[in-house]
């Protein structure tokens, strides 16, 4: 068992809802304790009061339930899950920031945790001072920091601003410095949470490279990220968490695929069962909008899959000329594209395009091709017009979905892929000449 880095059994964490957002004031405790005897008296007379006591238990929830882990020395393991699946709670327990409610974990070796970059940075202190402060906070010895100081400064590319207070730094410089300190932390076991989502593309690439070095040096890394592409490249093995429980563990590729398949709820679909409450007016009403991938309603897909946007609507006026359309928006709300079922804007011929619609319920489906969108969050606005340009339904961002990276386009480059779209395009390179001919460098052919 000497090659074991982390082992955990039955790890669980119970949170009392509200306890995290709202702290108690003394008054609450005082009134609670003042009312306590009263409550016990009344409950002696009333049976159903026990239900009120039960509600205390209802307010509690298990952020993490019965987790078992075994991670070997030198292994890199990714942890995947939606928001609230318990990833951060698990890291916090392993980092000893919070205690588990049940179970135990044993950790062999010095643990460093990077749950955030720049923890403890003080804006009034200079870059130099913050390197020492932050290093000490992350658990580095003073001598270690001194030894690696030049390397940290070079990595962060802030040589000129070393003696400037950090509050005068640009956010890019700030993040670079923060990551540089963190990247030089050299514990045997490193816990990393989402910190790669910082900086510009070039710096992200550098960070990812650094992380790969760390993993390559035989250190144990546990890595939590929403960036499935970099996770897949960094960690051969992954663990999928859902609702606080370990759903599955195994090779990263398979786990990511399962995770994507898991996202079948959320805002991938919206249905209005009451006609009067649906967006629209007495001429047209929306009934439903949904994202369908491989025949399944979902809010998660990957960059390679075709995405079908289904719109169901009631035409309430005989003979109306209807045009369903969509706007695709990125996470910042920029319109990526607009598309409408107009004969000249359709790849295919649609039998209803430009027709007079009899009364009834219709479904229009628009297909967004795979290998087209970048990874990230997208939302869809549904617009239905009469006579091409008269909007009758204008439902803003009614559905949304996540496009996940798969790692298939990540064999070489691991940083942030710029752009709203990420189509696979054709590249062709030719060798034109062996040596530049004298005086004819300008010539093209």
């Amino acid at each position: 068992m000497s090659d074991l880095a982390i082992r955990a059994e039955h790890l669980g964490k119970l949170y009392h809802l509200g306890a995290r957002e709202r702290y108690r004031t003394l008054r609450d405790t005082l009134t609670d304790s003042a009312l306590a005897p009263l409550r016990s008296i009344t409950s002696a007379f009333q049976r159903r009061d026990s239900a009120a006591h039960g509600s205390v238990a209802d307010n509690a929830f298990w952020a993490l339930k019965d987790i078992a882990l075994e991670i070997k020395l030198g292994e890199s393991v990714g942890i995947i899950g939606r928001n609230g699946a318990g990833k951060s709670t698990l890291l916090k327990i392993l980092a000893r920031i919070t205690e588990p409610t049940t179970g135990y974990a044993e950790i062999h070796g010095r643990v460093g945790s990077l749950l955030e970059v720049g923890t403890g940075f003080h804006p009034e202190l200079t870059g130099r001072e913050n390197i020492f402060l932050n290093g000490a906070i992350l658990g580095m010895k003073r001598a270690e920091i001194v030894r690696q100081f030049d390397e940290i400064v070079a990595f962060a590319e802030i040589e000129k601003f070393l003696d400037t207070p950090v509050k005068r730094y640009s956010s890019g410089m700030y993040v670079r410095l923060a990551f540089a300190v963190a990247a030089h932390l050299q514990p045997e076991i490193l816990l990393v949470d989402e910190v790669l989502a910082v900086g510009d593309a070039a710096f992200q690439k550098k960070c990812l490279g650094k992380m790969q070095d760390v993993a390559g040096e035989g250190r144990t890394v546990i890595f939590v990220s929403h960036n499935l592409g970099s996770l897949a490249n960094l960690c051969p093995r992954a663990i999928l968490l859902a609702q606080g429980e370990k759903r599955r563990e195994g090779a990263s590729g398979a786990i990511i695929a399962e995770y994507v398949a898991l996202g079948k709820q959320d805002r991938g679909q919206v249905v209005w069962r009451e006609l009067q409450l649906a967006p629209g007016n007495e001429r047209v009403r929306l009934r439903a909008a949904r994202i369908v991938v491989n025949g399944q309603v979902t809010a998660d897909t990957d960059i390679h899959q075709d995405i079908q946007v289904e719109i169901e609507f009631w035409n309430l006026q005989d003979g109306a000329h209807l045009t369903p359309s969509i706007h695709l928006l990125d996470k910042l709300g920029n319109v990526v594209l607009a598309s409408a079922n107009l004969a000249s804007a359709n790849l295919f011929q649609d039998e209803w395009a430009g027709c007079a619609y009899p009364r009834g319920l219709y479904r229009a489906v628009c297909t967004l091709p795979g290998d087209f969108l970048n990874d990230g969050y997208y939302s869809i606005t549904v617009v239905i017009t009469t006579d091409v340009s008269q909007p009758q339904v204008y439902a803003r961002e009614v559905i949304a979905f996540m496009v996940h990276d798969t790692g298939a386009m990540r064999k070489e480059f691991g940083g942030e892929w710029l752009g709203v779209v990420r189509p696979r395009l054709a590249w062709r390179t030719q060798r034109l000449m062996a040596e530049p001919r004298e005086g004819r460098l300008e010539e093209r052919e």
Partner: protein
Amino acid sequence: MPVIWIRPTRGWASFNLRELIEYRELLYFLIWRDIKVRYKQTALGIGWAVLQPMLTMLVFSVFFGRLAGVPSDGIPYPIFAFTALLPWQLFSHAVSESGNSLVMNQQLLTKVYFPRLVIPLAAVLAGIVDFAIAFVVLLGMLVYYGIAPTPAFLMLPFFILLAIAAAFAVGLWLSALNVQYRDVRYVIPFLTQFWLFATPIAYSSSLVPDAWRMWYGFNPMAGVVEGFRWALLGTANGTGSLMVVSTLVIALLFAGGLGYFRRMERTFADVV
């Protein structure tokens, strides 16, 4: 290779001194940060460390010494007040800084592991620099008033430690309570103000009848302040038992605060 065990703990946790020593560098850096940052972007800078007790002394001298004619055990009133104000300011600053320290550093609490005691302790210790600077002024005043040191002067380090221990003890209670109840933030200014007048700073504890003097020691700062006067000015009018009582009260407060802090600390990251 060290093995770390993580499991739920219950009840009273023991005080892990070894771990605290292991993290002494972090303690050092946090103290250093607090000192560096304290007077950043102020025009007078470290001058505030002198100005605050000096101005308070002036106000006290005018209103209590001159106008009200409060007796000062035969010592010139300004130095009588200043000697008491030094440990008081050390105490009151340290209490308010450490009382708010955990909440101020909640980013650290929720993101990194380290012995939580380091935070209020650093906040208390950072105040020593201010104290040291003001102390130089006090020495100057002693020379000016021609007050020669007595053998009791050797006891001064003990009373300085006692002031720090008192501040740390109260800071432990307040900082841990503050994580749970933010009321503490509003209690602290009121508490220190009230405490200032309940402590023999503007007046002498000899105002209290002899039979009751000892019980005055239940205000731990009474013992510290009278100890300072005794060590520096040589005034000892039956305050010995008062100092003993204060020392005991501080020891109890400290033990209780440590216990309470250690008990609460496991939920700090979840609650703060």
